[in-house]
């Protein structure tokens, strides 16, 4: 795509801007759709109907109406809040989650920046979200916000270890940190995907990655940073209007980002499951987005079926279950590669 743009336009700056904005074209409609979907999925899992009236067919206009409401809402800043940090936090949150998309290959023809250290970059920039959460929690000057922020930071830092180890398993097989290169290695039928290779190590690594990534994006069963019954809304308690919307947007974008990474590393990314059938740049984008959306749906499914973990259970899962098993996978793959 970069080459294509280069053939038409001559201006470097313009080309880079276009390349940088492309993921937004997907993210914004995706967020509108997924917020509606989340409400529908949660409703149907609890034998309710969810939004039904706005827009006619199954309340499809509900999110757009909500967005209009949030846009018009008065922006309330608490008198005792730290003004600068309070206003800055939502932007850093969204910047951190959007920066991840720079290295995610949407199709064989489009990747924001095909760098050699793609996966490593993603792991690094996703830590920006934690800084933003801490900033929001501290600046709000509210005890619920502060506790939510601290829980969130502790949780994300803790679950980064199993996530990185699980990713390392794939990196060891692929021998490359570039996500586009990892995708090219999984071309062909679906048994070429990494999840089915070197059974069962990569499969276990995939499960570990998925569980840990749920904790990274603060989804149930790991949503203690925003536990409604204890902390009102955690670090976003004091936010209203568009700033609240920015946090929600970042949360849903993060959900897709971790799903996209899971799809790319373990399920072949933009590769078609059926060899050459329906492959090519546009179908690649279709397969990639459908795999990502599938994981987003699983995240919702888990959210509305599982109860929330206690803090000590959270520690137990990370340190005594996920991390040792991730090490087992890394050592197992290492030995297998040497043979």
């Amino acid at each position, binding site marked *: 795509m970069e080459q294509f743009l280069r053939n038409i336009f001559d201006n470097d700056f313009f080309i880079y801007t276009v390349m940088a904005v492309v993921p937004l074209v997907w993210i914004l409609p995706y967020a509108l759709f997924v917020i509606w979907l989340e409400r529908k999925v949660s409703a149907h899992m609890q034998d309710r109907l969810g939004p039904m009236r706005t827009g006619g067919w199954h309340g499809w206009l509900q999110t757009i109406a909500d967005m209009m409401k949030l846009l018009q809402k008065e922006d309330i800043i608490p008198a005792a809040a730290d003004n*600068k940090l309070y206003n800055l936090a939502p932007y850093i949150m969204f910047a951190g989650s959007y920066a991840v998309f720079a290295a995610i290959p949407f199709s064989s023809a489009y990747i924001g920046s095909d760098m050699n250290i793609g996966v490593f970059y993603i792991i690094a920039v996703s830590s920006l979200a934690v800084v933003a959460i801490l900033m929001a929690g501290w600046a709000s000057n509210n005890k619920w916000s502060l506790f939510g922020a601290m829980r969130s*930071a502790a949780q994300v830092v803790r679950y980064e270890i199993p996530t990185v180890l699980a990713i390392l398993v794939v990196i060891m097989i692929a021998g490359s940190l570039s996500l586009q290169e990892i995708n090219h290695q999984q071309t062909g039928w679906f048994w070429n995907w990494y999840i089915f290779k070197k059974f069962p190590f990569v499969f276990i690594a995939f499960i570990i990655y998925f569980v840990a990534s749920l904790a990274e994006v603060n989804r149930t069963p790991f949503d203690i940073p925003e536990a409604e019954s204890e902390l009102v809304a955690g670090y976003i308690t004091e936010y209203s209007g568009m700033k609240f919307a920015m946090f929600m947007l970042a949360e849903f974008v993060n959900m897709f980002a971790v799903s996209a990474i899971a799809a790319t590393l373990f399920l072949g990314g933009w590769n078609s499951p059926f060899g050459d059938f329906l492959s090519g740049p546009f179908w690649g984008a279709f397969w990639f987005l459908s795999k990502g959306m599938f994981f987003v749906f699983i995240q919702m499914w888990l959210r509305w079926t599982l109860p929330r973990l206690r803090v000590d259970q959270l520690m137990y899962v990370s340190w005594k279950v996920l991390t040792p098993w991730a090490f087992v996978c890394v050592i197992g793959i290492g030995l297998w590669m040497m043979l």
Partner: protein
Amino acid sequence: MNLFDIIFYFFALIVLVSAGIVVFSRNIIHSAFSLLFTFFGVAGIYILLNADFIAVAQILIYVGGILMLLVFGVMLTNKVVNVEIKTGTMHTLPAALLTAMTAGSLCGIFYATDWTIVEGIPEIKSTTNSLGEMFMTTYLLPFEVASVVLLVALIGAAMIARRDKSLQQ
């Protein structure tokens, strides 16, 4: 001025302004969060200089690790235990002398060095491969020693943080 220069000055400006806030801000939490932009700007300059691995490692370790620890420490002491942390000016004369000496020697080195610009270096395709190879061959001993030191520090931290059983009974 081409795109390279513009990007360099942009990141340099970010580094300088945010570092200024780190030093001059009266509010310690503003200093801590301002450090985020300093690290980010330095990482940007690293990437501009083709050192992508170092740039990302910088963000991962300094933003994801050290900055978080710093903010956590400030938050725990300031808001939860109610200790007022103040930054102020003290020991003005020795501080001015020391900083003047450091700045002077840095400027001296900068002007005294005969900087040579090597032209025509081939574009580096992958930094991680060569870095990994060097870690496993030429610099194996320092690499292993560093990891042992880190492991010792980790065990030490766990030992200190452990609940003392004899005190409990």
